[in-house]
């Protein structure tokens, strides 16, 4: 009787694990939450802006604030700040495979295209666009058959330095830097002068993440 209960519990655990692995929040729900989040953040920004203007009380202060807002603070975003965009989740549909080049997706930043990893069993499942420190950052989300998700961000503008404590690897002639942050493994490297950031849960082996980052699709993915 005990052995039967044991088997049942194990069967139940496996059934639940399978249901969990194949279930993701609908894109429409993510979009509604993202819209709520942006609405919630906007009043806070306005309050901060008023807090800056009132003590200064003049046009000079207003001009300074405007310049800071437009320039996005003036500094380059860090790799980890860029990687944190992945946590916000996809709010756009996944880009399609490029019909002319099956190693690429129909999405790019400053002419740097995202790879299509279908043959590696990682399908694109969503995307998002952000502004970080005044720069455009586009993220494409990929998922493997187990439902594990990786986020690939290409940062617009000049490349930024990798984190100082990142471990360096070289694969396919590309320098890749690996660091762990907030329970995720983050890989960063350059493609055509742009910073790319790939992050995934720690459950994804480091070598797997490095292989994905350095994958050049037999020369069809421009680096």
């Amino acid at each position, binding site marked *: 009787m005990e052995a039967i209960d044991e088997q*049942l519990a194990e069967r*139940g655990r496996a059934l*639940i694990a399978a249901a*969990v692995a*194949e*279930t993701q929040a609908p894109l429409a729900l993510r979009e509604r*939450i993202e819209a709520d989040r942006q609405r919630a953040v906007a009043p806070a920004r306005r309050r901060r802006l008023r807090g800056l203007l009132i003590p200064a009380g003049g046009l000079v202060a207003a001009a300074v604030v405007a310049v800071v807002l437009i320039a996005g603070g003036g500094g380059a975003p860090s790799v980890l700040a860029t990687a944190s965009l992945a946590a*916000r989740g996809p709010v756009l549909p996944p880009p399609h495979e490029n019909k002319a080049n099956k190693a690429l997706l129909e999405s790019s930043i400053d002419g740097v295209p995202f790879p299509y990893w279908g043959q590696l069993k990682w399908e694109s499942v969503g995307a998002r666009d952000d502004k970080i420190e005044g720069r455009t950052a586009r993220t494409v989300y990929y998922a493997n058959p187990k439902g594990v998700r990786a986020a690939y961000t290409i940062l617009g503008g000049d490349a930024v330095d990798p984190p100082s404590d990142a471990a360096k690897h070289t694969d396919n002639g590309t320098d890749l830097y690996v660091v762990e942050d907030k329970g995720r493994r983050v890989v960063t490297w350059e493609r055509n002068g742009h910073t790319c950031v790939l992050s995934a849960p720690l459950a994804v082996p480091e070598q797997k993440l490095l292989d994905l980052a350095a994958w050049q699709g037999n020369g069809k993915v421009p680096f």
Partner: protein
Amino acid sequence: MLSAVVSGPARQLDPAALGDHVDRLYRAAWALCGSREDAEDLVQETFAKVLAKPRFLRNDDDLGYLLRVLRNTFVSRHRSAMRRPQAAPLPEELEPADNSSAMRPDQAVEARQVFQYISALPADFRDALVAVDVVGLSYGEAAKLLGTKEATITSRLYRARAQVARGMDPSRESVL
């Protein structure tokens, strides 16, 4: 209601990082409600509550905090619903088998059934199973969150998993 876990200095919950938890909260909500549509509403209401004002936590357990808010919101909604007159759903209002996020139709049906069986479990069993198997908290985290002992979580999980398996197997006694 679930108990709060308090230790260490306060820090503000980062709204920008909430998106990382949507999938897990959605699954938890589905397992609590037994319906995808109700789960979507519950998750959105949970995030709306969290985003309504700055939140300060005394630990790094954002997910545990969000699960607590989700569960409390679920309990409040359930109580409100119980006070309203109940209407039996017409056949066309019953939960459809389709699940666009699943890879195959048979998987979609099975996932829907699994979540429905979980939602029909006794609340103590259901909450332990949602915290550990659905959301992915450790036994210790689940015990703190649910205000009980790890050994109790272990026992509830064991029995809850077995009940789900029985429910999914027509040849065995169903929990529904």
